[in-house]
């Protein structure tokens, strides 16, 4: 059982948090894995920032975060404590001075951080992998799962409704 004080906030967290994990965190983690192996440390550092900021923004959705993230004042940290923010940002900054020796340990900690963020969404099983043959159907499945309640609550849809219809 999960008790929540506000239905809209709870739905926003679970619904948009999942899509943010699929669209941003999964892809950026994949980029980092490829970049670390190829010695593209600049790419790893840039995408580490993306992973951490998006994970923080997902965690923040449970408290005070905004569901649309493209504004110039979008606050990745809304409602989070200073310690939570510092822990995440430190992981991203560490990537700037990454070398071959420390990269696998750092990558493991980053993966764990992302996995903890995803687990917090309460899906009970791992989210579908977007960059996989079944991935796009996974995202459409999530969009369908949430579309009715999002519409009922007057919240914006996950995907353009046309996509969901066309994929039916």
């Amino acid at each position, binding site marked *: 059982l999960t008790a929540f004080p506000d239905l809209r906030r709870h739905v926003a967290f679970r619904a948009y948090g999942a899509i943010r994990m699929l669209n941003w965190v999964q892809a950026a983690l994949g980029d980092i894995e490829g970049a670390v192996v190829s010695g593209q440390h600049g*790419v790893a550092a840039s995408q580490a920032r993306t992973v951490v900021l998006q994970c923080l923004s997902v965690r923040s959705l449970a408290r005070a975060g905004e569901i649309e993230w493209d504004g110039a004042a979008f606050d990745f*940290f809304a409602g989070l404590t200073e310690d939570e923010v510092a822990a995440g940002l430190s992981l991203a900054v560490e990537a700037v001075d990454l070398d071959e020796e420390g990269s696998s340990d750092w990558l493991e900690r980053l993966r764990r951080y992302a996995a903890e963020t995803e687990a917090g969404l309460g899906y009970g099983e791992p989210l579908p992998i977007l960059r996989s043959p079944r991935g796009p159907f996974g995202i459409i499945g999530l969009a369908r799962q949430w579309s009715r309640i999002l519409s009922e609550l*007057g919240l914006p849809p996950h995907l353009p409704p046309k996509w969901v219809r066309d*994929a039916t």
Partner: protein
Amino acid sequence: VIVDQTQAARLTDFLDARGTTIERLLETVETSFGSPTAIVASGSVLDGFGNETSDIDLNVVVDRESVRVVPIPAFEDDLLVDTKYFTVAQLEEWIEELRDGPWPPRGHLTREGYRRRYLQLFQCVRFGTGLIVSAGDDCESLLAVLREPWLAECVVEWWRAERVRSSLAARWLTDRKPLLAAQKQCDAVLAALERRAALGGQLTFKPKWLSEKLRVLEDGAALEMLRAALRLPVTAGETPDYLARSAALLGELGADESVDDLAAQLWYAPGVTVRRLERSTLVSRWQLRGLEIRDAALPATDVDEPLWESSVATDPEPEVLELFVEDLTWLSIVTRSS
């Protein structure tokens, strides 16, 4: 029709290593949406930045009036092939808008206009810098237009406006949300570096590849600036030093040039509602969070005008600034009307 031998060799080597070929790649192109009149391959592999998790992007122009397609990628064993379909008319319209419409524009710029420009640039850069795998006569001339110097100028203009937008956001956030201001200031430095890379001919429109673009340009100084920008503060106490350091970086990148030609506009963000409550105004977004502003009236949300507009050197009045800080507005940069 393969016109760039370097790109062709990169693609062939990448596919060879995965036991496949360009021909098999092309077999993944769906023809039920219309017969392809041009196929352009793009992505990090073609740009020379590829690594083992890279995918291949196929940009397909089809001979029909409209395409309504869910972008579903194909897989060739472990290789992800991300294919998008466009019409000739779309490409013609985008070229005209980009080439003939300076950026930032004069007049009003809404979030939709901003997003449209971004998508046009993103896609036209792919068509303009990718490998032309096949093209019919009509499309070949369109693709040739995209290889003219104006496209690079559009990319340079875009990043200049982005730098100004992010710097302004950082300035307006510094007092109330210093850690967030530092992130925006970082974005400003990255935009200035993107502009520098574009001036050097590196147009790829994906932020993650900035370091690789600078590496290809052998721009060691810029790479060092990038690393410095990414050493972001993790506590509010560290932000004043970071903001000072990144302001110096922006100066080195020539971002202290005059911006007298530019103005800022604030629009209500999507999902914002405004309600009067006696002498107060309640502003909320998606009814999840909001602000109560006392003794101030704000315009209705259905007005087709920005909430506030002024030169980028000017700060908004406190209640409007608070709307920005609370992410209840959309910030646009425009060219000032004379």
